[in-house]
């Protein structure tokens, strides 16, 4: 057996660690966490939550199969199924972060009923399968001690509630801030930004304003020799707090509900129905030929072409876009039709970097590029003309993301490119379909190029040489 490699992002909880070995994912449970782990297993809570898909499955395996590979003092080893794609809360659109927050609260509530508490409230403990959030950290489940406080409350606020409030009360999406501040948004920062009228709300007064004000209180042992004040957090209050938060978060919606540039693009775009059918047909053929396990859809908009790929043999699609309105519609589509499609926020010219501790805790997009295929429709001109990315660089990046792909080239005479050039000089003499194909052919083989609209939009299918990368 290969030597197990510890996951660089799994180090915070001393009760265990994630390892990768032979393409599989294992979680260790150390001796100090053994009692809690066995207690929680005995309650049947995890089996119920795994049964309805809210917690990722985990099967006990023998630790003897890992000679010398694991840290010392391991009591149990659990094998988890590998997820199609790991995403982070700074990549989630608003409804995904909201769904994750509600899942966390629901699990907490059910756990309390079983005498179990969650030791933290990290948003990174939730991953998506399609639009369905699933909790992935078995070690967060601990025995509940009567009267104990909700130790993850502050973290819940910073990683779920405050980023949601930023959008719901200030109309600002959480993604850029969250990416720069991986622990989320603090109550004291949010408090400075919230309109004062919003602070009249009991919930905001309590979870943002009061929490931020009291954070400056110094918590010290009794200095004057007197016995410290004894207090406990009654279980009924714990439950009530979770229920109130859940009810409140369920009502939160983005404040900026006006039209975004791309939200209605599928209805208002500049080409005809038969031209859309031609594009869909090309993607359908591509998906049928490859049957990719994982396909990336760059500039996914509301997910039309991901849906086509999934309907034609693709197993799982991850969409990327930077328009919040389009992403919200894409997420709603995935949720309502139970599509294996996860839409995520991404600026193609500035993809998620590798970051966190030692720059290895949260891999960047390139570090997670395990797709079998990539499609980039109506995407290239936004980077080439909108962001001045040179075509050779763009072609090399695209062909590096997956071994197979379809890229759409939108020529200068197309109204969408004309719009990009309307207020600036055309400094792109090389921006032609021929030159772009030449650039692609430097790192991949062009399988087919088909013009699909009257304006001259061309779909180019490429394949990277087997020895490539």
């Amino acid at each position, binding site marked *: 057996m290969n030597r197990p490699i510890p996951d660089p992002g799994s180090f*915070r*909880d*001393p*009760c265990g660690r994630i390892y990768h070995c032979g393409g599989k994912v294992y979680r260790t449970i150390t001796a*100090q*966490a053994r009692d*809690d782990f066995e207690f929680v297993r005995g309650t049947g809570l995890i089996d119920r939550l795994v049964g309805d898909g809210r917690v990722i499955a985990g099967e006990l395996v023998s630790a003897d199969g890992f000679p010398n590979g694991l840290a010392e003092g391991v009591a149990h080893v659990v094998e988890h199924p590998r997820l199609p794609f790991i995403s982070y809360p700074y990549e989630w659109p608003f409804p995904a972060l909201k769904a994750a927050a509600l899942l966390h609260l629901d699990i907490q509530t059910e756990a309390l009923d079983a005498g179990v*508490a969650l*030791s*933290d409230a990290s948003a990174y403990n939730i991953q998506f399968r399609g639009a369905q959030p699933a909790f992935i950290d078995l070690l967060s489940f*601990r*025995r509940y*001690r*009567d*009267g*104990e*406080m*909700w*130790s*993850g*409350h*502050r*973290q819940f*606020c910073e990683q779920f509630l405050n980023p949601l409030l930023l959008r719901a009360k200030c109309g600002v999406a959480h993604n850029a801030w969250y990416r720069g501040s991986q622990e989320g948004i603090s*109550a004291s920062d949010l*408090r400075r930004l919230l309109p*004062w009228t919003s*602070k*009249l709300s009991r919930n905001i*007064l*309590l*979870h943002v*304003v*009061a*929490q*931020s*004000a*009291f*954070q*400056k*209180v*110094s*918590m*010290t*042992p*009794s*200095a004057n020799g*007197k*016995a*410290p*004040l*004894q*207090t*406990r*957090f*009654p279980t009924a*209050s714990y439950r*009530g*707090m979770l229920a109130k938060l859940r009810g409140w978060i369920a009502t939160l919606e983005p404040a900026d509900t006006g039209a975004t540039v791309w939200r209605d693009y599928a209805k208002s775009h500049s080409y005809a129905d038969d031209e859309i059918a031609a594009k869909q047909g090309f993607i359908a053929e591509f998906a049928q030929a490859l049957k990719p396990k994982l396909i990336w859809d760059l500039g996914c908009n509301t997910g039309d072409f991901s849906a086509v790929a999934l309907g034609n043999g693709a197993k799982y699609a991850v969409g990327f876009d930077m328009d919040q309105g389009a992403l919200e519609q894409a997420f709603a589509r995935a949720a309502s039709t139970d599509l294996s499609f996860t839409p995520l926020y991404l600026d193609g010219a500035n993809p998620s970097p590798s970051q966190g501790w030692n720059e290895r805790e949260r891999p960047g997009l390139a570090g997670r590029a395990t797709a079998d295929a990539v499609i980039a429709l109506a995407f290239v001109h936004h980077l080439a003309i909108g962001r001045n990315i040179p075509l050779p660089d763009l072609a090399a990046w695209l062909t590096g993301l997956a071994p197979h792909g379809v890229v759409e080239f939108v020529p200068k005479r197309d109204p969408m490119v004309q719009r990009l050039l309307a207020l600036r000089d055309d400094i792109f003499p090389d921006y032609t379909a021929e030159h772009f194909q030449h650039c692609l052919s430097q790192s991949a083989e062009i399988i087919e190029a088909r013009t699909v609209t009257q304006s001259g939009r061309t779909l180019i299918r490429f394949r990277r040489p087997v020895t490539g990368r």
Partner: protein
Amino acid sequence: MITPDSLLQSLPVWLSADLVTPAFAYLDPGTGSMIVQLLLGGIAGALVVGKLYWQRFKGFFSRKGTASPAPSQDD
């Protein structure tokens, strides 16, 4: 302008309470969160917070009322 926000900001307090904290807590729950939970914990918790402020209030005056010890002749 006096807002609930600014009032809260103006209340310094030192908290000395023995709270039931979870075993193996590797996460700092944060003082702000703990006091919010004390308040939510009903009358008992709110009384604790009230008592903390009262002790602080009393402490402020008792310190003022106590004469500082005379300097020692040995100094």
